[in-house]
């Protein structure tokens, strides 16, 4: 069994898309994820934002953010296919972030260790100076 991986998926819909249609896209993606034994951890609708550049004659877009845990890498391909064929979606991006989160955790842990050591050391120094 492959280890669990964490992905961030953002897709942009046309700004005039009704909310119901966006929910439909989200639920179809959720179905795909569940079929592959993954799970959607978080769905976050950022709402309509300005695009940095025009996509398909749209200057604004409705951003939706998904956080997905999965062990099946093949799932991403299927999600991409679904997003490609769905009408309101302008653009999407999938980023695998588990390794970066791991690195971040490592750096945080290291910093905490160092702070603890430094605190211990300075405490010892003042004790020596006093004694």
């Amino acid at each position, binding site marked *: 069994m492959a280890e669990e991986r964490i992905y961030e998926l*953002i897709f942009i819909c046309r700004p005039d898309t009704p909310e119901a249609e966006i929910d439909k896209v989200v639920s179809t993606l959720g179905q795909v994820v569940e079929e592959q034994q993954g799970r959607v951890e978080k769905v976050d609708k950022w709402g309509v934002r300005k695009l*940095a550049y*025009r996509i398909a004659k749209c200057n604004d877009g409705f951003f939706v953010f998904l956080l997905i845990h999965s062990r099946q890498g093949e799932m991403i391909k299927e999600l991409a296919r679904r997003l490609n064929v769905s009408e309101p979606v302008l*653009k999407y*991006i999938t980023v695998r972030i588990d390794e*970066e989160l791991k690195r971040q955790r490592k750096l945080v842990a290291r910093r905490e260790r160092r702070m603890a050591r430094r605190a211990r050391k300075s405490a010892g120094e003042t004790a020596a100076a006093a004694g």
Partner: protein
Amino acid sequence: MTPDAPRTSQSSHSSRGSHGPAGRHGGDRPRKPRRQYVRKRKVCRFCVDKIDYVDYKNADLLRTFILDRGKVIPRRITGTCSRHQRWLKLAVKRARNIALLPFAAHA
């Protein structure tokens, strides 16, 4: 690496500037005064703020590191350390992909 000595301000100063040619200054040794002004040493914004992951979704932060044209500002100007510049580059590229940042300013 260097043993921690918070008593003298000089030693803590030299341990900070471990990378970059600007870190090699003469200390307080008597020397001919060549320059009147002292150039302020640039520090990496990400290191100061203790950021361990440059998030591509944080467009407002990334926007401070790109020019109006959309180009990434070189680190010799911003003072970002090499590691954080690398992460920044990746984040900017991802943000461009999802239209949070421009590839180039449109005319």
